[in-house]
């Protein structure tokens, strides 16, 4: 990664209670693949979608009685950027590994079950892809294993 990335940051504080809005915000950040820089500071590579999503989350935090600001930022050094990107890549790598395990295990499932598992894994693969900003080596194997499962289902049709 030679070119530097522009980041969008959400700095926020949200009341501990009630816990529902706090957990809702946390879940959405996880779904987006945001990386935690510090307590109450999360980051994503900036694009139209991530900026918009963090701005809506900022509104949600304000509505819940918290405080939130959205920032555009650049890391001070390439090394810091690599470290942050590596943490994000490791997080999605874990998700790809789970997908690989699930798709491998599904090969032994009865046909009808396997069909449903395939639909679920394809959906999951697409979701993980949306938060995969710095693709780890696990991405291609995960795609291949799910594609191989699809072929197996197709053959039995």
């Amino acid at each position, binding site marked *: 990664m030679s070119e530097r990335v522009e980041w969008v940051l959400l700095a926020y504080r949200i009341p501990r209670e009630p816990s529902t809005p706090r957990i*809702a915000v946390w879940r*959405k950040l996880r*779904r987006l693949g945001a990386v935690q820089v510090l307590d109450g500071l999360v980051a994503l590579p900036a694009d*139209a979608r991530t900026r*918009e999503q963090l*701005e*809506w989350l*900022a*509104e*949600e935090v304000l*509505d819940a009685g918290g405080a939130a600001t959205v920032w555009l930022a650049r890391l001070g050094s390439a090394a810091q950027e690599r470290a942050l990107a590596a943490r994000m890549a490791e997080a999605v790598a874990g998700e790809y590994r789970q997908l690989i395990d699930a798709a491998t295990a599904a090969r032994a499932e009865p046909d009808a079950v396997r069909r449903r598992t395939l639909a679920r894994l394809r959906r999951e693969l*697409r*979701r993980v892809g*949306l938060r995969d900003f710095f693709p780890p080596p696990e991405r291609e194997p995960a795609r291949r294993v799910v594609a191989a499962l699809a072929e197996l289902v197709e053959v039995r049709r």
Partner: protein
Amino acid sequence: MRWATRASVHVDRAACAWLIRRFIDQAAVFVFVADPDEVPADATAFDIRGAQLSHRAGDCSFETVLRRYDLTDPVLWDLARIVHEADLADDRFDAPEAPGLDVLCRGLSMVAGDEQVLAVTGVMFDGLYEHRRRALLLGRDPA
């Protein structure tokens, strides 16, 4: 009436603009701004931070507009299910149509300006509305 929203419209804004022109204000004129501060004083803002007609309590702007204008047409609420998932993908609803609508809108905004995106998506949402209307009447997807 003048209505303002963020430039480079995506699915939620395109759907809101269609909804406004079809069901709220036939003479609607749309203004596109880069920042909430640029919303003209005489315009009603939507899908932009700080606006009433925006994301609210987990709803996308399309749902907020439906609530705010008491639009109870079940076909519109079925469209809301699709628009919500295309915009937020938070699994609140089951909407297999959503990923397709999302990429169509993203692709459109890569090759067309905001006015043209609204023109094209306007026809698209007319068609989607008709499809869902027939689906609700039939109880299954129409051929």
